[in-house]
């Protein structure tokens, strides 16, 4: 059916007198790595139909369906929600479901697809995420209460303004594009990383949470917020506009002010902590 569609499209283009220099196909150079056969990744060229509504994921699916069934990559939702199809497209971390082939079309154009940087490669475009998942868990990404409320006391109420203060940081889909964009992650693998710190800040700023001190103990550290050199690439590549770089810098200011406060007025801080611990 796909072939027929392509042929009919070609015919309609010919009928309209389309210019001959606009290609009907596009070259995809896809990184291949088979742990059983390869010592390091190699690139394989595939010629796929060029359709203006196709994204890179459509091209990968075409390769898997028609050209080489052994191509291995992750994908699920096709709509920028699941965060599983992140790859490098011409060196830029992108969601393959949200990156149109037409952005790369032109004379002699090619689209180079590689696995995300700084992660171990399991096979072809599939990266290993257990370290990332461990880092996410490390920042205690859940509501921490000094004293739990009983169900009978009702739900936590939150104003729209309180929601707005952390909403942006809650939009993360764990696609790990920010890790592939962050050179600190590559140079210092113990760095907690942008998404995990943004997630910590999402809970720190939540009016229902009382666990910011526990998180700061973990993250006010050279492997945490102070490891970030503010390259800012995490924010630039984020497909959900989470702004992890902003979260980290705001966390740094918060942490530094907390330190100064503790130094200058330790008793006031102790009193504030005692007040916060008191159930409302």
């Amino acid at each position: 059916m796909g072939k027929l569609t392509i042929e009919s499209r070609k015919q309609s283009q010919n009928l309209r007198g389309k210019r001959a220099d606009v290609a009907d196909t596009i070259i995809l150079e896809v990184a291949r790595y088979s742990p059983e056969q390869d010592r390091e990744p190699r690139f394989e060229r595939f010629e796929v139909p060029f359709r203006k509504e196709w994204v890179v994921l459509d091209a990968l699916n075409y390769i898997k369906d028609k050209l080489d069934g052994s191509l291995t990559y992750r994908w699920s939702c096709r709509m920028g929600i699941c965060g599983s199809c992140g790859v490098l497209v011409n060196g830029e971390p992108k969601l393959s479901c949200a990156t149109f082939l037409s952005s790369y079309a032109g004379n002699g154009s090619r689209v180079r697809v590689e696995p995300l940087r700084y992660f171990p490669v399991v096979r072809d475009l599939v990266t290993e995420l257990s370290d990332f998942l461990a880092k996410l868990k490390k920042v205690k990404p859940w509501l921490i209460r000094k004293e739990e409320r009983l169900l009978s006391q009702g739900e936590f109420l939150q104003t729209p303004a309180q929601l707005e203060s952390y909403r942006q940081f809650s939009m993360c889909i764990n696609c790990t594009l920010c890790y592939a964009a962050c050179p600190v992650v590559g140079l210092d693998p113990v760095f907690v990383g942008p998404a995990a710190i943004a997630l910590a800040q999402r809970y720190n700023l939540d009016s229902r949470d009382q666990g910011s001190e526990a998180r700061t103990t973990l993250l006010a550290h050279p492997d945490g917020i102070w490891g970030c050199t503010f390259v800012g690439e995490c924010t630039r590549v984020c497909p959900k506009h989470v702004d992890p770089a902003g979260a980290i810098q705001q966390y740094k200011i918060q942490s530094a002010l907390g330190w100064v406060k503790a130094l200058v007025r330790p008793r006031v801080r102790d009193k504030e902590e005692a007040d916060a611990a008191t159930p409302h």
Partner: protein
Amino acid sequence: MRPPPTSPPAYTEFHPRWYRRHVSTYWWLGQRHYLKFILRELSSVFVAFFVAITLLQLRALRTGPEAYARFQHTMKSPLMIALCLLSLFFLVFHSITWFNLTPRAIAVRMRGKRLPDFMVAAPNYVIWAAISGAVAWVILR
């Protein structure tokens, strides 16, 4: 030979054949954004140079007219002029790049809404211009 039943499993938890890419020393040369970041970091060296020159100038002023004349003579050498011009470029680059990053670090909210980026960055430029103007007025009047 079959291992005894109490021995650990034969598989490794982490696959020994995962491919791990080496990060090149020159990772920052590959992309424009990374190069800009490195130049921004490098600009700190020129900021330090500029501060040192200013302190030396103040010391020469305090020491007396002869010391200041010597300082002026040194600063007129082609090497110092080239260094000062390079420092000026990096100082402006440093200021602009950091001023433009302030909206990332400072989230100002008014009536529940976050202020637009330019409203957080703009005061930096206003203060910069005001101080530069005041210094120029003191020197040139």
